[in-house]
């Protein structure tokens, strides 16, 4: 049974409109695209206002007047669009950047750097021959890929040890192939959701 719900019909229209671009650029797609941009920005505003109320205003209502500062900083963000007072915008953005950078690099050195080295610096002989082979490949892949990204010691890329970064490049290309294969799956797996919507929820043939 074809759906009688207008919301489903509108959704079906926009699904087809957004897909149509794959065939060729057209005015219906442009309409869909502009709808999308507008509504996405609207949603951002609604969520922003709600967050300001829940995580900022709520504190002020609790008597924590220091939170008034962040409201001032928040308004200062909008000086971004002023030619003359652009610099005012730098104060809040400096706060956001300092917090964002600090919060991610403090742990990054542990998660990305030390944990990965510690895992590589482990016994290579494993319980089964296959695991040993895998360990060797992982070790070689990690160390050679890393050597490929050394830029200031030209000797590494030439002469007798020049093969090391080259192996790293090959290992990376093999990995990128795997990444490519998974990207294919991501895209098809995603569009399937839309086909299911059209056939099941809209046309009711499934």
């Amino acid at each position, binding site marked *: 049974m074809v759906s009688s719900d207008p919301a489903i019909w509108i959704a079906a229209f926009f699904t087809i409109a957004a897909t149509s*671009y794959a065939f060729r*650029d057209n005015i219906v797609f442009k309409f869909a*695209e502009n709808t999308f*941009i507008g509504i996405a920005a609207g949603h951002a505003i609604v969520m922003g206002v709600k967050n300001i109320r829940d995580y900022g205003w709520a504190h002020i209502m609790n008597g924590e007047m220091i939170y008034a500062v962040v409201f001032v900083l928040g308004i200062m963000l909008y000086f971004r669009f002023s030619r003359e007072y652009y610099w005012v915008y730098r104060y809040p*953005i400096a706060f956001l950047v300092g917090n964002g950078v600090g919060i991610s*690099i*403090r742990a990054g*050195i*542990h998660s990305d*750097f*030390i944990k990965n*080295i*510690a895992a*590589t*610096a*482990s*016994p*290579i*002989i494993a319980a089964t021959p296959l695991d040993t082979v895998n360990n060797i490949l992982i*070790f070689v892949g*990690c*160390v050679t890929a*890393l*050597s*490929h*990204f*050394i*830029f*200031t*010691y*030209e000797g590494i*890329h030439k002469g007798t040890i020049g093969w090391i970064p080259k192996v790293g*490049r090959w290992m*990376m*290309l093999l990995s*990128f*192939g795997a*990444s*490519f294969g998974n*990207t294919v799956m991501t895209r098809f797996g995603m569009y399937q959701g839309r086909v299911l919507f059209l056939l099941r929820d809209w046309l009711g043939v499934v």
Partner: protein
Amino acid sequence: MAIFTEGRIVPLIAFVLAWVATYLAIQIGKEGKIRIRRLPGLDAIEEVVGRAVETGRPIFDIPGRGSFTDLYATQTIAGLSVLSYVATLCARLGAKLYVPMSRVDVLPVAIEIVRDAYRAEGKLDELDVETQIPYLSGTQFAWASGVIGMASRMKPAANIMIGPFWAESMMFAETFHRVGAMQVGGTARMYQIPFFAALCDYVLIGEEMFAAGAYVSGDPNQIGSIASQDWYKIVAIILSVLGMLLATANITVISDLLKL
């Protein structure tokens, strides 16, 4: 009560040393004592610009869709450094350069960079900013289809795309390949590298694009940070190799050390 959080001594030392190393490397870089390996892709650019002049076909340089305030700002900057190099070559040898842009905040900077390059070569009169550095659109697919349209019409000799790229990477790589352009692609957005690696003649993987940017700009600040990262990578390699050997021989000193 301990001052330092338990189990984070080694990360803290690594962190503080990174601070010192970055500072030191930039100082050494300022003295001009650090040399960065020249990447093969850069030599290829020089060659293809020469060839473009002979055949009368244009050169495309796309610095990506990032801005100066997002996460990918450093990639955009690396892309602009390469743009400056490409623009200088094009001005010197007389090839026509096209730089299709998608970000309003990057656009004026790109224009300035290209203008500077043409001015330095004394060829400012050969540059037509409006048509050669057009602002196509701020939205992804509108911009992408604009670039694809330009590429199909003009059949460029080369396409240099270095910067942050998203899903458009596959469309670009395929289109420019089809029209027979030599391609140099580079991005640090890992999801997109497979598409560049498959179709570009030269691909700059991840940090290679920063090294290329530092190489062509000669900026000690950029060169210094490449050098300090190199030191860390060398330490990582040494620790990995030593640690693996020792651990295999049942000596766990390095893995114990890293747990501190």
